[in-house]
């Protein structure tokens, strides 16, 4: 196909030699991957919650060699003027220099911004967090929920690891009840979390879609797509990322796999939260 050849030249990775990419593509054509997974199979996913005492909610997620902490802090503040009855969720991601040799200190780059925003969108749009229930006094005072993603080790597929960590930390978060002066008390109440949104990310290598890309697969990718689904198997967020394109059929394949795998991951999350 003419298109494919052009794309190959266009997206030739600067890091991994072309030959390495060709190898991964040829493997994928046969439905195989370097680490012997199926194309639609996750790496081992380990979820631990309540791992940080100082956070109101927390989770440590390992996805293959990728490791992410999510920590939740709940505060109070003013609502946004256009949503005076809604609590506010603020999601940030830091790709700290510890996590990879090429991560730089400093304000979040566009990679970190995209991770945080896609994770945030999946959770927000699934309505997993009931922001109405986080209103203290309309137009005046609401709860602010800070979700901080701290990436410790980067071995591919940050969005899914961060998404699972954030959702797990939120779902197990115990926020302090306020007294009559709006000051936090010792009493704790769970956050109003009613769903478990799960993002599933694929890369396209040649004509194949690979779920949960490893670092090497990410480096070789033509294009990337994330599909977040909720408990009722609705799609609640999508994000095509990086260079390259998808056909409609490829997108719908990604949607179908995400729905199935999302359900399995929700199972693991529930197990971890017990």
């Amino acid at each position, binding site marked *: 196909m003419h*298109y494919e050849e*052009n*794309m190959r*030249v*266009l997206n*030739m990775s*600067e890091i991994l030699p072309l030959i390495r990419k060709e190898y991964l593509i040829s493997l994928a054509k046969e439905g195989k991957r370097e680490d012997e997974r199926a194309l639609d199979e996750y790496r081992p996913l380990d979820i631990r919650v309540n791992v940080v005492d100082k956070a109101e909610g927390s989770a440590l997620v390992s996805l293959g060699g990728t490791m992410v902490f999510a920590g939740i802090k709940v505060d109070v503040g003013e609502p946004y*003027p256009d949503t005076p009855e809604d609590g506010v969720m603020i999601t940030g991601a830091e790709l700290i220099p510890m996590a990879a040799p090429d991560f730089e200190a400093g304000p*979040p780059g*566009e990679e970190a*911004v*995209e991770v*945080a*925003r896609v994770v945030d*969108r999946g959770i*927000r*749009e*699934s*309505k997993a967090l009931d922001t109405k229930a986080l209103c203290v006094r309309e137009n005046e005072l609401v709860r602010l929920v800070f979700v901080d993603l701290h990436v410790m080790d980067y071995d591919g597929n940050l969005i899914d690891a961060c998404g699972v960590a954030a959702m797990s930390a939120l779902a197990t978060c115990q926020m302090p009840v306020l007294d009559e002066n709006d000051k936090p008390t010792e009493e704790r109440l769970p956050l109003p979390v009613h769903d478990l949104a799960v993002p599933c990310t694929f890369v396209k290598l040649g004509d194949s879609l690979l779920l949960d890309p490893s670092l090497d697969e990410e480096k070789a990718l033509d*294009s990337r*797509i994330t599909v977040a689904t*909720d408990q009722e*198997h*609705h*799609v*609640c*967020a*999508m*994000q*095509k*990322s*990086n*260079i*390259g*394109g*998808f*056909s*409609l059929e490829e*997108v*719908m394949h990604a*949607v*179908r796999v995400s*729905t199935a795998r999302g359900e399995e991951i929700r199972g693991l999350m529930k197990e971890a939260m017990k």
Partner: protein
Amino acid sequence: MERVDGRRFDELRPIKIEAGVLKRADGSCYIEWGKNKIYAAVYGPKKVLPRHLEKDDRAILRCRYNMAPFSVEERKRPGPDRRAVEIGKVMQGALEPAILMHYYPKSMIEISVEVVQANAGTRCAGITAVSVALADAGIPMRDLVPSCAAGKVDGQVILDLAKEEDNSGEADMPVAIIPRLNQITLLQMDGKLTEQEVEQAITLAMQGCQQVYQLQIDALRRKYAGAEYE
């Protein structure tokens, strides 16, 4: 279903595209899309700065999306915020596959989108304008990149949501395509859709992109009357 501005479910807002509107830029485009007013500019190919970003075998593409402080209801602080950074990144992903980047090794193409008045759908309008500006700059491309959103309002999948529809709607999905290759190069979604609705919305958005594509070609024809395009 009656839409707020009387459009059919598969009807675009009025779109006006004009190529070559800026003096300094190597290529430029002004687009009015409903109440959106957006400028796009292209500089390059030019020397890469800083040098260490240079690629031996192809050009690099830098995309900037920015809103003027007065373009929205509440005054926006000058300079790109996190939303703008993300849009810049997905714009790049939408446009780069259409550009023959390997024609210009060791060089840089810089793209700017400036939103002067915003009213839902600025990223689609921006991508649409940029690819006209790229053509105006004479950058060789596989194709233009038209862009258009679909969404769900009151239970129905519709094309090109206006601001009021977006605010009250159940889902919004901006899409960009490379028509000749039938590839989707921008796809974002927020809201809630079933699998069937996702397919329906993408299909509708792709049809919208085809309409936008004609408007892009018309704009370039008007600018380069007599010259052959396509």
